[in-house]
């Protein structure tokens, strides 16, 4: 095999390896992987995001309309500030509500948007006013047990 041919083949091999490592690195890093052409940003503040992750889908009526861009902690209001990127094609009214829901029973969290009835639409950079935080299982169980415990002495007193 000629020298030129060998070098070309080895160069191709090295290129393939570089592309493979690049693919692994980019795919593992948090670069946007969806094929939306243009998006606009909205914000929402939550008391509890409960396992919502960056790149989780934003769905309205069950259809994915965007992705979570970033989740940060606001040290002044002690809330989580979630930035959403919504597809340019979809506009939502200003009284849209955002809920953190679970896909399936124990699945991953996603953000659900329920459109309101206002005439005006949310502009890029607006904050969604009506939010419902994630339901955390432990808080539910502890509040249930607390209510149960509060009930029993009351019932015992009423029976007497």
């Amino acid at each position: 095999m000629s020298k030129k041919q060998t070098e070309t083949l080895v160069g191709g091999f090295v290129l393939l390896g570089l592309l493979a490592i690049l693919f692994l690195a980019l795919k593992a890093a948090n670069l946007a992987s969806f094929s939306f052409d243009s998006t606009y940003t909205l914000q929402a503040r939550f008391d509890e995001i409960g396992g919502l992750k960056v790149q989780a889908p934003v769905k309205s009526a069950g259809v994915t309309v965007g992705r979570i861009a970033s989740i940060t902690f606001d040290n002044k209001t002690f809330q989580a500030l979630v930035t959403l990127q919504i597809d340019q094609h979809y506009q939502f009214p200003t009284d849209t509500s955002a809920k953190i829901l679970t896909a399936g029973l124990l699945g991953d969290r996603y953000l659900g948007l329920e459109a309101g009835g206002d005439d005006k639409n949310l502009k890029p950079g607006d904050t969604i006013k009506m939010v419902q935080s994630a339901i955390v299982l432990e808080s539910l169980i502890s509040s249930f047990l607390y209510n149960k415990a509060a009930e029993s002495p009351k019932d015992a007193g009423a029976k007497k």
Partner: protein
Amino acid sequence: MTLLAFPGLVGRRCLALLAALGHATLFFVDLLRHLPGALRRPYLCIVQVHAIGNRSLSIIGASGAAVGLVLALQGYMTLSRYGQSDSLGLLVAVALVRELGPVLTALLFAGRAGTSLTAEIGLMKSGEQLAAMEMMAVDPRVRVLAPRFVAGIFCMPVLGAIFSVVGILAAYVIGVLMIGLDPGQFWSQMQDGVDVVKDVGNGVVKTVVFGVAATFIALYIGYESQATPEGVALATTRTVVVSSLVVLFLDFILTALMFTAP
């Protein structure tokens, strides 16, 4: 053989093993010493990269695809029992990038490239080519052994990455195109769960370590083989066995170091 002679036999075998281990270590240090000489002759290394790397592409690619397909099918069956079938991408990527990619690539590399190295060096030795080179005041370790060592260390991370990528793409074909999972969840859970430094980076480190081990073992066993056709045949099988065991053992040590929380 009398019963009394048995402990003597065991003792002699153990001492021989220790001697071989010491000889191998000295050989390794000698090989490292001649690395700069090989790096100064890049064309020799390039020819070896072609022989070791390019020629292994077909088996690495095919095996990567097969492992990815099987991982996707088995993973889907188990995950769907708990309603977590959306996590298939994460499962396949973590399994491939952290463990299966480096280890299986190393085992296939030892089987394909390792045996070819051993056979080549063994035949060179039996054909007295190495002795002839020494007669001409050409150091065979610089011209023959060290370029193959450099090529082996270089090719392993490349092949490991290609294995993992082909596996993930094959899993995508099964999971998204055939079973019908959500592609966004497939990639987003993977991107969320696989860390560039901790997972991909550690996987690359593993492939480099396995490359050093497998190539060195292949070269050593080839160099120390008996200069007969039977000796070369025996050496090639020994390469596969010893390389595989050492790679699996090193994998255990590296996994314990890298992936267990302190």
